[in-house]
């Protein structure tokens, strides 16, 4: 198997007011080398928490179960030293808000080159590689702009700088958490194109976290749909979006309005998204599900292979597919 990242039975418990809350419950999926896997879900679905588990930045007091195997290393048990060595080099991360994740008091170039400098690359080489990387992500006049501070960059340029920072050490896995959500549409399209191009050039795998199905449909090859901290379904992006195997995915797909043609407002799901702290019994989606039966209220559906490469955590998956 060429799975770069293999997440098996991952559970995360966070301390809550009335005892620990299981924010991630038995999540399993793989990210093959060079492939983009999209983690999609709404508020409270746990998508960011999974990315944080991979990069070892969970909040204090988090209890992790299961395993996260990255190129043979179990990231759950390997300890902070090993994680620190991997971070920025083998695994890097792009955050949603570049203004909040760039240091406002340091020049862009310094921040982009930090990971190289820390691993002992000579200064002159760091400078050259920073300028080259900024050039590759489309920062105009990179030698000069490397001396700018983050506030002198536009939102789109800042996100490009973040991408340069994430890519400069040639990671084999990039975690991208809503990388284009804060950008205007015209900028978003260009940044997505850039991410895709760099990923192909570098042969890096990407775990893309987003709530935006449109973005996902353009960038991800595989999709993992999350609901209330559990996997609802997973499979290739084209099959998951084209022919959902879970009623939640089906509702999500239907609720995305088309841009160029006028579509009717989708029949809304009743209620609001379940959150892990108040997860309904059985299938967490059952109170909003049009297909729910007595079994859905009592028995938690675990993902099962309903078609080759298609995994659905729905007791009624066959009905949804037909």
């Amino acid at each position, binding site marked *: 198997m060429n799975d770069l990242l293999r997440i098996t039975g991952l559970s995360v418990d966070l301390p809550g007011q009335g005892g620990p809350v299981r924010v991630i419950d038995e999540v399993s999926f793989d990210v093959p080398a060079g492939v983009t896997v999209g983690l999609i879900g*709404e*508020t409270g679905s746990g998508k960011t928490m999974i990315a944080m588990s991979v990069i070892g930045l969970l909040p204090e007091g988090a209890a992790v179960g299961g395993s996260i195997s990255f190129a043979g290393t179990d990231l759950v048990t390997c300890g902070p030293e090993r994680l620190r060595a991997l971070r920025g080099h083998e695994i890097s991360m792009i955050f949603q808000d570049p203004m909040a994740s760039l240091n406002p008091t340091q020049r862009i170039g310094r921040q982009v080159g930090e990971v190289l400098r820390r691993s002992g690359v000579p200064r002159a080489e760091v400078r050259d590689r920073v300028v080259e990387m900024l050039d590759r992500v489309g920062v105009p006049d990179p030698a000069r702009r490397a001396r700018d501070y983050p506030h002198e960059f536009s*939102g789109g340029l800042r996100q490009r700088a973040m991408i340069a920072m994430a890519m400069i050490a040639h990671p084999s896995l990039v975690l991208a958490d809503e990388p284009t959500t804060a950008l*205007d*549409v*015209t*900028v*978003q*399209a260009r940044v997505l194109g850039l991410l*895709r191009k760099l990923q*192909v050039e570098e042969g890096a795998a990407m775990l893309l976290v987003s*709530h935006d*199905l*449109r*973005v996902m*449909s*353009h960038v991800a090859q595989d999709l993992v749909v999350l609901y209330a901290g559990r996997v609802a379904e997973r499979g290739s*992006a*084209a099959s998951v*979006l*084209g022919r959902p195997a879970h009623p939640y995915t089906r*509702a*999500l*797909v239907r*609720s*995305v*309005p*088309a*841009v*160029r*043609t*006028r*579509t*009717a*407002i*989708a*029949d*809304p*799901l009743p209620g*609001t*998204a379940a*959150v892990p702290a108040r997860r309904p019994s059985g299938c967490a989606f059952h109170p909003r599900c049009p297909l729910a039966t007595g079994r859905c209220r009592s028995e938690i559906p675990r993902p099962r292979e309903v078609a080759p490469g298609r995994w659905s955590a729905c007791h009624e998956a066959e009905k949804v597919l037909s």
Partner: protein
Amino acid sequence: MTVLAVEGLRVTFPVRGSLLRRARFTAVDDAAFTVGENEIVAVVGESGSGKTTLARCVVGLRRPDAGAMTFEGAPLPARRPPELKRAIQMVFQDPRSSLNPRMKVGAIIEEAWLTHPSVAPPGPRADTVEAALAGVGLDGEAADRYPAQLSGGQCQRVSLARALALSPRLLVCDEAVSALDVSVQSQVLRLLVELRETRRLSMLFISHDLGVVHQIADRVVVMRAGRIVEQGPAGTVFADPRHEYTRALLDAALELNDIGMT
């Protein structure tokens, strides 16, 4: 009937740190458009296009430097009497930051009526609050909660209930569904369209989401760098955009269905 008419609207901001103290940034430049009765007019554009500034002028949160606005045929004065403040209500993007975190939902709705007693419904407060919440699909129980105890979608309904409690004739929605999850977004959109029918509301709907705009708008105003570059019936603007910027916006917007890129 024309509910809102805006003409030659111009808004400038002082530029901080400029050598010439008088330098000003023009956020809205010579904007003109109308909103008819029972009509949903969408304003689209990217960040910095001036769409929020425009909305703030319409509700009276900002005084324009120049231009004229009329509401139901009468000029909108710079200092608005309570009756006009009531008739034009606004729903903001971030439902949490626009609700007082120290007040329970019921008190938030009641406060609107204390400010504008002319539209306070008769009957026991608990009942009228419950009816106001029911109008946006919220349980009466919500009255006893604080905003922090509600989800984002529920908070946005409370904002909407507070605005509607004042029986406005024009509702200004500034990215009112943008922060909501898609499955909740369609609930709120449905609600807005229903309210337009049942209450004969007119709406100025500010959004950057062209898909949502295409679903609910009757007419579309496209703004870029403070100027209106194109406006017209939604069908025409989307099917046959005249301005290159509108075309660029539409080209850049992603669709869900064109999967299978590389």
